[in-house]
Each structure stands twice: as C-alpha cells, then as structure tokens.
C-alpha cells in the first residue's frame, strides 16, 4: 500500500507488511506520525522552517543586541565604522545626475548593515527578520481563518444539505469564480483607506489584521468545496448509516464521526495553504496592498528595493531567496503530511 506504484507489479516489501500489522495496533494519528518520522525530505523541510521561524522570532535580539539599529525609523545621518573607516549609511549619489542618496551596500558583517541599507538608511537584515515575523504571522493566522471558516461552511453545507447547502454552494460559486487578486485588490483598497470602527473595536489601516482577514477570506472556497464533498461522502458511508440506524443523534454523529475525518483533511491543507498565503501576502505587499510602511514584510522589502535594483540589488534579492526557501520547504512538508495521513494520495496531484 505504501510502496511506490511502479508498473503495478511491485511486491509488498517487508515495511509495507509491518504497516499493515501496525494498522491494527495503532490509531491513525500514531500511524501518521510514524510514517512522517520516516520521511527524510519532509523532516529536513520541517527543520528549515524551524530555522526560519526561530530567526524571525529572534529579530529584536538581532536588531537591539547585535546590530543596534531601529528597523522602522529612517536613519538619514548616521555613520558606521568599518575596518577603521568611517562610512555614512546614506552617501550622496554619484550616479546619474548626482541627486538622491546611495545607501550603504552589504558589509557581510552581522554587526553593521549585513545586507546594506535601504533608501531610508534602515538596516535591511533587521527588516528582513522583522519582515519574516509579519509574513509568517499573516501566513499562519490567515490559514487558521481560512480553515475554520471553510470547515464551518463545508460541514454545514455537506451535513445539513437542503436549502443551507444550496445557499452556501451558490455563495462559494461566486467567490470561487472571483479572481483572487482582484478580490484582494477590492478589499484592500477599501479597507486600507479608511479607519474601520466596529463598535468599540477600531482597526487602523496599518494593522496587520487587514491583510490577515483579506487573505483568510479569499481562499475559503478552495478548502470549503473539498470539505463539503468529503462530508457528503461521509454521510453516505456505512458507519454513519449504521449510527443513524442505531438512533445516534445528529450532533453526536457530527462530533464523533464527521469531525475527526474532516480534521485530517484540514491538517493536510495547513502547510499548503500557508505556502499559498505567504505567496499572496508577499505579492499584495509588493503591490502596497498588504503590510504598510514603515512596517516590514518580505514583500514590502522587495518593493522598497525596487528603486535600488540596479545599484543595491541585495535589498530585493535577499527577501526573494528567503520566500523561495520557505515556500519550497512548506510544499515538501505538505507533501510529507499528506503522505503520512493518506499514503494512497501519493498518486494524486
């Protein structure tokens, strides 16, 4: 069952046999954990992600203790000492007409502008670490919103059926057909340019809650539709039929039979949705529709580096590399989680 599907002739190996005996001895969670722990590439991906997360969490440590900079305020006049030489962080530009400033390039020394400075003299390395906090926070919270909303909608539509299903499915149809970036553009342009007051709660336009909500909402149909399908299939399954026949009340069937099955599907979605949400956040921030200045996210920094692309390419290059590493790791982790919960899914895209 877990062997590779080469030609359909592959003989069951001894590990495959072990797993079959395991299936009787352990629950699905223990089995999944067991399978995951033997997936080398998924473990490496998890390790890479942990490094990225820890580095982002340590951003204040770096900014305060190592570099001694404030990544959020402009720094127009300061100087640093490098190899016994005093250098301004922002030197007058020597290129073109000589107007404007040329920020310091990468020094490759952790205590002084490792990746150089941006146009406002802010330490790019410190902003990269802080940007990681924002990007990862938005990525994970919006994933949580997507999954909770999608599970609620999908389970309601699939379990109760009837007019609830019809209404929810039509709403999902509309959201599904609405191109995600256009939807996000509509929402952000309205939300970012007005203060939202919901009774006592006031959301400022620079709040991270706005991109979190936007990204959390736009992908709901992508998860809700498969969940609805799964719940529909579960409702017709023999064990649910048996429970109904035994007179088990619907809420008990929902909690004991439907939810645990949906939960594993949701877990499989977590890393993949996080990758998608991080990609969306960076794109929106790049378009100035996500994290707002002076705040930093990986997308914001690439945007900041756009005007310095030819003179100080590292400002834009570094966050891009970090995004790629993070998204690749999340995808590999996602494949690993999927294979761990459902080895047969390996065959499906």
């Amino acid at each position: 069952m877990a062997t590779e599907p080469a030609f359909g002739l592959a003989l069951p190996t001894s590990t495959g046999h072990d797993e079959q005996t395991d299936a009787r001895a352990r629950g699905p969670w223990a089995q999944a954990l067991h399978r995951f722990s033997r997936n080398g590439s998924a473990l490496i991906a998890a390790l890479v992600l942990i490094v990225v997360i820890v580095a982002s969490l340590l951003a204040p440590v770096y900014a305060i203790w190592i570099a001694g900079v404030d990544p959020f305020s402009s720094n127009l006049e300061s100087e640093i000492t490098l190899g016994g030489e005093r250098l301004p962080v922002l030197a007058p530009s020597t290129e073109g007409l000589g107007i404007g400033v040329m920020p310091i390039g990468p020094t490759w020394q952790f205590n002084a502008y490792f990746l150089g400075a941006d146009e406002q003299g802010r330490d790019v390395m410190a902003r990269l670490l802080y940007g990681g906090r924002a990007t990862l926070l938005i990525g994970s919270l919006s994933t949580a919103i997507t999954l909770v909303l999608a599970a609620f909608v999908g389970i309601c539509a699939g379990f109760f059926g009837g007019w609830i299903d019809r209404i929810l499915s039509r709403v999902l149809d509309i959201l599904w057909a609405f191109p995600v970036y256009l939807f996000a553009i509509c929402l952000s342009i309205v939300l970012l340019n007005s203060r939202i007051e919901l009774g006592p709660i006031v959301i400022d336009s620079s709040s991270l809650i706005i991109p979190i909500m936007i990204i959390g909402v736009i992908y709901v149909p992508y998860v809700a539709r498969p969940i609805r399908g799964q719940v529909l299939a579960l409702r017709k399954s023999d064990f649910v039929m048996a429970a109904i026949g035994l007179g088990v009340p619907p809420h008990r069937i929902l909690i004991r039979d439907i939810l645990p099955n949906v939960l594993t599907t949701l877990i499989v979605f977590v890393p993949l949705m996080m990758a998608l949400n991080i990609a969306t956040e960076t794109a929106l921030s790049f378009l100035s529709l996500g994290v707002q200045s002076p705040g930093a996210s990986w997308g914001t920094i690439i945007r900041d580096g756009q005007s310095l692309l030819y003179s100080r390419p590292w400002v834009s290059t570094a966050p891009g590399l970090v995004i790629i590493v993070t998204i690749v790791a999340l995808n590999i982790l996602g494949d690993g989680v999927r294979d761990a919960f459902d080895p047969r899914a390996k065959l499906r895209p």
Partner: protein
Amino acid sequence: MMLAVLLQRLAQMLFVMFGISALVFLIFFATPGSDPAARIAGKNAAPETLLAVRHDFGLDRPLPVQYVVMMKKLFVTQDLVSFVNRGLKVVPAIIEATPVTLSLVFGAALFWVLGGLLVGILAAACRDSLADRILMILSLTGVAIPVFWLGEMTNLLSQNRLHDTLFFSWVPALGYVPFRADPIGWFKALLLPWLTLSLGFIGIYGRVLRANIVETYQEDFIRTARAKGISETRVLLRHALRMSLVPFVTMFGLDFGALVGGGALVTEVIFGLNGVGKLTYDSLQSLDLPVIMASVMYASFFVVLANAVVDMTYVVLDPRMRSH
C-alpha cells in the same frame, strides 16, 4: 439533453456574474468607513467634484438604484470617467490595454504548455530515477519563486548587469511594442516577460502531468497495451499521456482566464507593459476608483466567461458530462 445542460451552465454563469458585480458594488459603495463619493472622486477632491459624483452615481438614491446606475455606466453607456486622471474614459482605456495583456498571456501560455508537457513526460518516463527527482525539485522551486521577484532579477541581469554581454545585448528597453508596428520588436520586448510569467506554470503543469501519468499507469488498459507488445514509448505517448491530458486542459482553461483577469498584473508592472494589469496598478497608486472598479469588473467577467466556455466545451466533447 445537451441543450438543457448548456442552458443550465449559461444560467449559472449569469448568476455568478451578477453575484460578483453585486459583491464588487457592495465593497466599493456600501462598506462603512468613508463616503463612496470621496472614494470615487479620489484624494482631496474639490467639493464641486464630490457633488457632481454624488449626482452622477445617484448616491442619494437607494442601493439597488445605485447598482443599476453603475452597471449601466460600465456596460451600456460605457461613459465612466476618471476623476483623478481628468477626462480619461475608463472603458476605452481598458479596451486599448487589452491587446498588451493578451499578447503577454498567449505567449506565456505557449511556453508553459510546451514546457509543462516536456517536464511532465520526461519525469514520468524516468520516474523514481535521479533525473525525475531533480526535475521535480526544480519544478517545485519554479512554483515557489514569486513572479515579481523573478521579473526583477531578470531585469537586473538583462537590463543592467549582463546587458552588454552576448546573452542579453538584444534585449530592448522595458516597454511594449505593438505587433502591427514591428513584429520583431514585439517578440523581443515580450520574450523575457513570457519566460518569466511561464516558469511557475511550467513547474505546476509538469508536476501535475507527471502525477497523472504515473496514476494512469496503474489502469488496466495500460497493462493490456503492454501485453499486446506495444513499445514503452508508444504506451507512454499514445495511451498514458492521452488520458492524463484531461485535467491538464481543465487547468489550462482556468489559469489562462485567471491570468488575463488580473493574474498577469505584476508581470506587466515589472516589465512596464501597459496592459490592463498595469492600468489597474497605476490606478491603485493614485486611488483612481472608477478605473479599478471597471477593470475588476471586466476582468472577472472575462474569467467567468472563460470558465463557462471551458465547461461547455466539455459538455459538447464528452457525452458523460451531459448527464449532470
């Protein structure tokens, strides 16, 4: 029977179009926080402008009337004007920008279909070997690269760092060249944007195609084909690939529509191609709401239409689809 299914699909399409337009309308006209007239008129508009906007869009009348007025301005009279960029007629501006977006997306589509087929077939042919693994890792990396970053890196090399070398000396300055004016210039201006936009899709399509072919290999008809003594290449290309192309085509329809409908925005911005996406982006920067509203509406209608066409093609081509 087939006609009934087609009509049903058409009705669904119209319903979704109505839903999206109502949603866009509500987002712009009925979200709390600021006056819709101020939103439409742009930053720091004069009081006269605000008054004119209020009258023009019927903002003192009930919401359903406002919706009808806006839809009429967008699709019937097409006389929506920008207030930030005075005198700009929005709908003609969008129509004028469309060929640029279509040139970009069609060319990229060609590259990603060919690239996706090549990667998918190669990886499936030598599945579970080192070459397969390397191809899959490269595809995954291609998927993970943000397209706007890839565009910047392409510009960094082709316009600046390596511009004077043999590889990139042919690259023209950023911008679009109309096909009619100069076909070769058009091709040169678009080649790098095409490659940039298609890379991620080559990764996705390659991975999906490989997975589909590998899955198809388990089917009985493949075993039958092998038993008949057909060569392995023929089994792959004539039998396994053919079955695997169905989801490939579905995905293509969806992605193509999505790219024309806004997905190519960042690529247009980075390469200075003044298509619909660039128009939307520029109006985002100046908060020019009429342009944003119109391009969002036209683009999402295009996507809905494209999806409906793909679905209907299936109904016509595949008799099994007609029962639903």
